[in-house]
């Protein structure tokens, strides 16, 4: 069984539901001889990956749809074995280098070298280059980015890179200037509603526009999540009731509970237990910036305006550190401790005012 998200993913540039003008431009780009390195960025669930697959199909034909999963092995100079999953066809390979954490530099360098040193065997192949798709490039370490910069230029004859990121802010200017940047904005709520209704129609279901609207709003303009939500609702109860509960992700509830715990009691012990929660979130792959954002917006909910301002400024400080440093837990914990102190003082002042 395949999920609706995969089943109804547009396979061709001309079949995309929104950003039609951009799709036109992409089509023109693929038909020109000199295809540049691409940097595709935008919020998650906006359709970056869909567009990449469409571009690949436009370049190479339907051959790119025959995908195979492979596990590649790399060895670091210190003899540590790394394993990483790749998805590849005859024409392209897709990899997420940040899966191996701090060793991403080796993966990036070795992979590009390997791919670039082999020419396309297929004489009739329309293109003389192969494509390497790197996802999650905003999590690449500085080292890996420097390595990438060099290899990008060196092997441009045999391979092109398509980088996929959420934001360009963590990429070095050197990388950004070597790619053609393409921003994929998140779909608007009406666009999501429209897509949900088409999918339901194809599935033979009826969905009222108010309910579609509700899902779209709850999805935070994340199309993938909207479709998943819709399918989850269908599994839960069909026909849809207009006031049906739309389940929110468990990690969201988890962060909310954590925020409640922080506001409830400010002590060293709470901090220790919050650390445990944070570790759980990080280990299970919830991105750091999402954790931070959700946590802060939950925390400031029951603060008065002056405190709110102070907390936001502190949050900005630690978020900045988080972006520039490694080991997120240090910065999370420092922020939570700071919040606890500020909030505790605020509460004490409030009590003092009453008497």
């Amino acid at each position, binding site marked *: 069984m395949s999920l609706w998200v995969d089943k109804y993913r547009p396979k061709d540039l001309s079949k995309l539901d929104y950003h039609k003008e951009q799709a036109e431009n992409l089509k023109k780009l693929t038909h020109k001889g000199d295809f540049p390195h691409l940097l595709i960025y935008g919020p998650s669930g906006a359709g970056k990956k869909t567009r990449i697959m469409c571009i690949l199909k436009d370049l190479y034909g339907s051959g790119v749809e025959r995908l195979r999963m492979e596990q590649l092995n790399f060895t670091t100079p210190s003899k540590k074995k790394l394993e990483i999953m790749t998805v590849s066809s005859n024409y392209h390979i897709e990899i997420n280098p940040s899966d191996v954490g701090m060793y991403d530099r080796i993966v990036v360098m070795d992979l590009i070298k390997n791919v670039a040193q082999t020419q396309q065997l297929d004489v009739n192949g329309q293109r003389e280059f192969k494509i390497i798709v790197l996802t999650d490039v905003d999590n690449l370490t500085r080292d890996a980015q420097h390595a990438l910069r060099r290899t990008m230029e060196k092997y441009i004859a045999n391979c092109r890179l398509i980088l996929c990121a959420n934001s360009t802010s963590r990429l070095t200017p050197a990388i950004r200037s070597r790619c053609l940047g393409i921003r994929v904005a998140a779909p608007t709520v009406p666009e999501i509603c429209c897509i949900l209704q088409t999918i339901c129609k194809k599935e033979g279901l009826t969905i009222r526009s108010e309910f579609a609207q509700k899902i779209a709003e709850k999805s935070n303009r994340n199309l993938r999540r909207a479709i998943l939500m819709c399918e989850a609702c269908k599994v839960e109860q069909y026909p849809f009731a207009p006031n049906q509960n739309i389940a929110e992700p468990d990690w969201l509830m988890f962060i909310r509970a954590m925020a409640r715990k922080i506001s409830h009691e400010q002590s060293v012990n709470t901090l220790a237990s919050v650390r445990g929660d944070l570790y759980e979130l990080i280990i299970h792959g919830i991105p750091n910036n999402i954790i931070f954002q959700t946590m802060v917006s939950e925390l400031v909910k029951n603060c008065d305006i002056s405190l709110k301002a102070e907390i936001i400024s502190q949050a900005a400080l630690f978020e900045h550190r988080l972006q520039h440093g490694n080991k997120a837990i240090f910065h999370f914990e420092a922020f939570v401790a*700071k919040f606890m102190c500020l909030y505790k003082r605020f509460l004490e002042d409030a009590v003092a005012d009453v008497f």
Partner: protein
Amino acid sequence: MKRSNKWIAFDVDTEVAMKSKEPAAASFTNVDTPKNHLRLSNSCSSINLIEKLKPKTVDTLAVHPKKVKEVSDWLERNVIKRQARVPVLVLTGPTGAGKTATLDVVCRSLNINVREWINPVDKEVDERFYQAQSVCFLEFFSLAKYNSLCDQVGGHQVALVEDFPNFAINNPTEFVNVFERCLGHLPVVFICTDASSSKLDLLQTLFPQEMREKYRIEIISFNPISATLMKSALKRAQSFVQKKSDLFHIPTAEVIEAVVISAMGDIRCAMNQFAFACLKGVGSIPLEANTTIPKKRKRGEKTAIIKSMERDETLGFFHALGRVLNPKRDESSQLFKIQCDFESLIDQFSTQPSNFNAFLQENYLKYFGDLGDVQLASDILSSAQLFLANWNERHEIMLYSLWVGVLGLMVHNRHKLSRWNQIRGPTKLKTITNTSGENFEMGAMDHFYYNKITNSDKFHVFKLRN
């Protein structure tokens, strides 16, 4: 061999006497020793005694038998059978762990001649002709492969470098060049004593990791001698001394115990102290004079006497961690003064600043009694980690972030909780990646819906706790 007899004639230090006994001693020294002994034994018998106390056979070594086995295995493999092409061995360990003694004794038992390089200190300088030290060093290696006329015929040879030439310490890169050129002549054994400071750590500066891999340098590291092994060594020494009770004071059992404790695993220190006790009767004098004084006091006195010769304390990783997490303040003054030698503390962690910071972060919460303190400390740790992440080009700079972290934690811990806590290692953050194959595209944030749609629990479910 550049050892001249002047060395011994001038200096009656025990150190020299130990060296002169080494089997490497060339023919010159052998000829001269009787004269020396005669002279020295007239004035004082210390040299003789320490000589006599030295281990002669493998059984009498105080080193752990497994280490001895490792060394003798290496010698057998590489010196007698010559299996490796460029056999190089490095022995490391703290002072007085028996590195040299082990090599000597094992070589003697295997009938191997040791050629030792000694820095030519008192060589008469020829005005017209001056040789660079590195040239001498090279020459030593090329000449050392020839048997001495006085040695047994057909014996195997091994070169020993314990006294590193000055050029090696001043200029490690030059040492590497010379090292490459002197390989191949002979199996070489280097002895590097552990140093408390990272700058003096010869093992790190002269034999970095890539070099060890390139030349397949084997490293055997010695541990400090354990108390039981040291006690049995001292017992042997005691029985030797007892045979000649007319010459020596016999140290009491208490003195021996104090020697074992104060030596802290340094067998050379222990033997020297034992010899002094024999010659001067250190422990026995106060015992005879003040028999009425309570026992505790006597013991205190004795250790105080011996303490003046105690070794420098080196901190282990965890010990130092405890120092930082549990800072000792000067209680007497009003100022918050922390009693600690920060320099040595930082030096202790300098090899792995990042790891140490992670250890601190994992454990600091349990030692803090106040939220305000925690906030300041966590802020400091977060900045230290930021520096570590961004200033990692040079090691010296990484040390600054270590300073920030260590001082920050110690200064801000004003409401210390003193209780026993288990030290935990930093949490391993291996992000669980989806390697199952299908649903490759899906991010961790959407796993919840996958679970819901397929009504399974393939992915992790965050459980809400109250």
